[in-house]
């Protein structure tokens, strides 16, 4: 079965290449749908497949740049990208990312990069999962209360409305973001992008994992605009990150290309699927994916404290993360095909 393994020229490790393709296609679909690079699945996934953590991060960011470029182009055509908001956020993202990337090099030198990245992942994923499901619960409570009062909840209403409080901050300059329908202080998106950029650099993610919910809950973007604008940001931070990590010698281009072949096509499927699934449907699916990722990272951490469990937890984490990528991407693809069928049938009916 040697033919199923390919020797990576830079990292010097033999990698199971079908795993790379599955990861690429799956993460392409998921990334295009949720508006993120999907690195929160790829980095642990690559690490599980055998890449050292620093190479996993760099390789992931490199493939992400190409994939998010395609997704941004698609979402741009759907009118889902607020370019003004995206450009404002670029400054914070780049500054934050560089600081994060420098910190990961330092953590690598002192030999604690693996555990630190995994623990940070855990805390972050738990926080995001809570935020998403709390939001869904609050929205459902509002709907129940409105139904009891004999009223109907506004279709644009959301569960969590932290952004309304943040919009009261009137530090100049104020900006009007037309696509997102927001009027706020420019410092709000700058501060959020700096923080998410820093996380992106240190965790080796495009930043979408936290920026997408931040755009919804803190900036106040509609879900679809958050998805599109976030991908625009991921594209920029991904390109910058790819250059930064490659120059530091931590990118395995062969692996990135194998993944990108599948990811670029999957990204189109995921982006088009947002046409057919409602905003809260996207949020709930996102929350479930985060929970799955949280469990897989937890499984990778257990052997650090209980070495005897290594073999069992390692297999479980591999199965879970690849299974999660496969299940989510199949679900999104099926929804996309169903929606497309209805659209084509409706078009034929009109003719």
């Amino acid at each position, binding site marked *: 079965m040697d033919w199923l393994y390919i020797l990576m*020229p830079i990292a010097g490790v033999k990698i199971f290449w079908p795993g790379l393709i599955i990861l690429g296609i799956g993460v392409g679909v998921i990334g295009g749908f949720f508006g993120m690079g999907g690195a929160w699945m790829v980095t642990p996934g690559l690490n599980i497949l055998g890449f050292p953590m620093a190479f996993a991060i760099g390789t992931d960011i490199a493939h992400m*740049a190409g994939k998010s470029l395609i997704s941004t182009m*698609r979402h741009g*055509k759907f009118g889902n990208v607020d370019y003004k908001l995206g450009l404002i956020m670029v400054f914070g993202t780049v500054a934050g990312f560089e*600081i994060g990337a420098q910190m990961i090099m330092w953590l690598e030198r002192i030999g604690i990069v693996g555990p630190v990245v995994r623990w940070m992942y855990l805390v972050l994923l738990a926080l995001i999962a809570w935020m998403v499901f709390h939001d869904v619960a609050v929205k459902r409570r509002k709907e129940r209360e409105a139904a009891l009062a004999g009223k109907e909840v506004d279709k644009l209403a959301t569960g969590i409305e932290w952004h309304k409080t943040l919009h009261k901050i009137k530090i100049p300059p104020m900006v009007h973001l037309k696509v997102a329908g927001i009027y706020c202080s420019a410092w709000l998106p700058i501060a959020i992008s700096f923080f998410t950029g820093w996380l992106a650099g240190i965790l080796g993610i495009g930043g979408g994992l936290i920026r997408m919910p931040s755009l919804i809950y803190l900036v106040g973007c509609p879900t679809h605009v958050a998805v599109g604008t976030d991908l625009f940001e991921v594209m920029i931070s991904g390109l910058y990150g*790819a250059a930064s990590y490659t120059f530091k*010698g931590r*990118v395995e281009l062969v692996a990135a290309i194998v993944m990108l072949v599948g990811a670029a096509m999957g990204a189109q499927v995921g982006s088009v699927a947002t046409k057919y699934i409602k905003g809260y449907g996207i949020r709930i699916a996102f929350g479930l994916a985060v929970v799955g990722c949280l469990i897989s990272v937890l499984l990778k951490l257990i052997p650090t404290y209980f070495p005897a469990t290594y073999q069992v937890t390692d297999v479980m984490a591999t199965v879970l993360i690849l299974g999660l990528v496969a299940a989510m991407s199949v679900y999104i693809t099926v929804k996309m095909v169903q929606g497309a069928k209805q659209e084509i049938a409706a078009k034929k009916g009109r003719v």
Partner: protein
Amino acid sequence: MKSVVQKVVLVLTTLWLSAPYAFAAGGGDVAPIVIVADSRKLTGVMAWWANLYNESHLYFTVLTVILIPIIGVLFGVLADLIMHFVGIDLKSRDLAEH
């Protein structure tokens, strides 16, 4: 105005270049880890690629940054063509709710 811009650029460049030293202050030695690709087991393009990595990270970076978007766009456009051929509307979206 021009001199102010020059000063800002100078300060930012200095900060960026000195950042590894600042962040390594608590970690001791700041010498970067050097990874050398073992090209002895490789042949053809793979060997050339590994050698390029060993010889110049700059050329390696430039080529990577050029190749990644090109390959992405190539396969993305291919998927676009297939979906357009199937009959999916790729220019508009009806949904506008949260």
